């Protein structure tokens, strides 16, 4: 019974932990602008996330190696340095987006300008990193994040034309009045929002924090193959609610508030409050988790102690990196760059950076000396290789598209 509870909790945490400011913004924008014609990108991103997460989790459980441990061992000093430093820059950008997103939600709820919230949010995220035990953090924030299910329920309340949604989903075509490069740009942003580097670093390092071993493989697989796809479903719901409400009115999503309005149409003030609460939890949890991921990456690269299991002085340099990350990210938001722009740039560059961590993990997942009988099977390898090719293509076209479309304008 206790075991079953643990499994359910794990899956629910994975659902709640999947969605962050990247999903909220990109799903809202694309649903309002393109209907469900980009739903395939969420599906692709989620499948890739589940496959990647499963491999990284297996390497963490069997070979006891989280992502950046593997990166340093396999890529050598120089390549892994380049890899780790771009990952850190990207993570800081992600933390900035999450802190900014949390502050924007607080502005919506209170009317107090978001810039005033930034230092408070940053301090709160740091406190979670500093003192909150790992499992409590993961469970509390993950479970509260399930409040986002209000978007799924709203879909049934709204005048949703299910046949049209389904038709757009399975016949993806660029809407006539829209430019093709922008449509592809948002496809990449959706993939990037589902397949975030920090989430994989967090997932595999979390596995080490919770001392996963071979006997935990089943639980880990349930989390990746049930939890992540359900998280992907939440992203699709965020996209779909925009279709019956915002799209007919020609509303484009430029602000977090617009993404929550469909729930108000369905359920009024209470629904709106739940929607904002779910945004708040999702972005705040992601702020803490992406901060931790930066610390994990740097500490694993240099072989320092890391993790929340021991008090901060026992992992001093890890905590120092986390603190520096929060400060740098808060500083970035305080320059008054629009957090929504930071979010889009960070998810798109995140999509481009995926091969950096994905490839070494794919290689180690094939090494019998580390994984013994738990190496990748034919199915995982076929899927893994196809996804690798997709991600490399995405990485190559990302920057040209970013510049060509001026970040999707």
């Amino acid at each position, binding site marked *: 019974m206790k075991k079953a509870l643990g499994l359910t909790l794990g899956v629910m945490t994975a659902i709640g932990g999947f969605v962050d400011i990247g999903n909220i913004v990109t799903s809202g924008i694309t649903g309002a602008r393109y209907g469900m014609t980009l739903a395939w990108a969420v599906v692709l991103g989620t499948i890739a996330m589940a496959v990647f997460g499963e491999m990284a989790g297996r390497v963490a459980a069997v*070979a*006891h190696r989280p992502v950046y*441990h593997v990166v*340093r*061992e396999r890529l*050598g*000093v*120089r390549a*892994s*340095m380049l890899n780790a430093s771009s990952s850190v820059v990207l993570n800081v950008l992600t933390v900035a987006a999450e802190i900014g997103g949390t502050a924007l939600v607080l502005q919506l709820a209170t009317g107090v300008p978001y810039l005033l919230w930034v230092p408070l949010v940053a301090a709160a995220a740091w406190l979670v990193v*500093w*003192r909150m035990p790992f499992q409590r953090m993961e469970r509390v924030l993950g479970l509260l994040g399930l409040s986002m299910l209000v978007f799924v329920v709203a879909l049934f309340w709204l005048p949703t034309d299910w046949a049209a949604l389904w038709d757009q989903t399975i016949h993806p075509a660029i809407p006539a009045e829209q430019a093709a490069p922008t449509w592809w740009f948002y496809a990449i942003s959706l993939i990037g929002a589902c397949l975030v580097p920090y989430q994989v670093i967090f997932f595999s390092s979390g596995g080490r924090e919770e001392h996963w071993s071979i006997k935990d493989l089943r639980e880990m697989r349930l989390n990746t193959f049930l939890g992540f796809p359900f998280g992907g479903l939440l992203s699709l719901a965020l996209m779909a609610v925009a279709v019956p409400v915002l799209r007919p009115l020609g509303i484009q999503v430029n602000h977090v508030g617009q993404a929550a309005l469909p729930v108000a149409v369905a359920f009024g003030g209470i629904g709106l409050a739940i929607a904002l609460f779910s945004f708040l939890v999702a972005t705040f949890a992601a702020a803490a988790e992406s901060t931790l991921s930066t610390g994990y990456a740097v*500490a694993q690269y*240099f*072989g*320092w*102690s*890391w993790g929340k299991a*021991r*008090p*901060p*002085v*026992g992992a*001093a*340099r890890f*905590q*120092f990196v986390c603190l520096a990350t929060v400060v740098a990210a808060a500083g970035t938001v305080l320059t008054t760059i629009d957090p929504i722009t930071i979010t889009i740039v960070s998810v798109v560059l995140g999509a481009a950076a995926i091969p950096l961590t994905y490839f070494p993990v794919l290689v180690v997942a094939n090494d019998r*000396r*580390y994984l013994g009988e738990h190496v990748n099977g034919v199915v995982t390898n076929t899927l893994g290789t196809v996804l690798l090719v997709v991600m490399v293509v995405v990485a190559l076209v990302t920057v040209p598209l970013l510049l060509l479309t001026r970040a999707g304008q």
Partner: protein
Amino acid sequence: MTDWAHHRFTANDLLLDRQLVDSRGMMAGRIDDLELSDPEPDPAGGGSAARAPVLTALLCGPIAYGPRLGGRLGTWWAATGRRLRGDGDGYPCRIPLSLVARVDRMQVRLTSPRELLPSYRLRAWVADKVIAPLPGSGR
């Protein structure tokens, strides 16, 4: 004496960039470089072979890491490491093989707690000067 899991191996496979773990299972850095005995000059001047170098110590810390990174960044890295050391010694932190308990595929395990290693100084400095003064640091 060191317990080696393999009797033939390569530097990339088992040593370079591997995780060091101290006697209590705590992370103690990575192996950034290896120290080998200096090759003895060939007395015959090209006739018989000189004795091959043997592994004498594992090297770690920024002064060992810098040269492996190479380029200007590597030079800067090593120079920063020397400055942090403050004692003017330009040689990297050494972990002699006598302190190595076991080398296997998973990790390189040491016989002593990490506090006794020379590479511990930077960590101790961050812990004492930056982290410990903050509230709730566990000290």
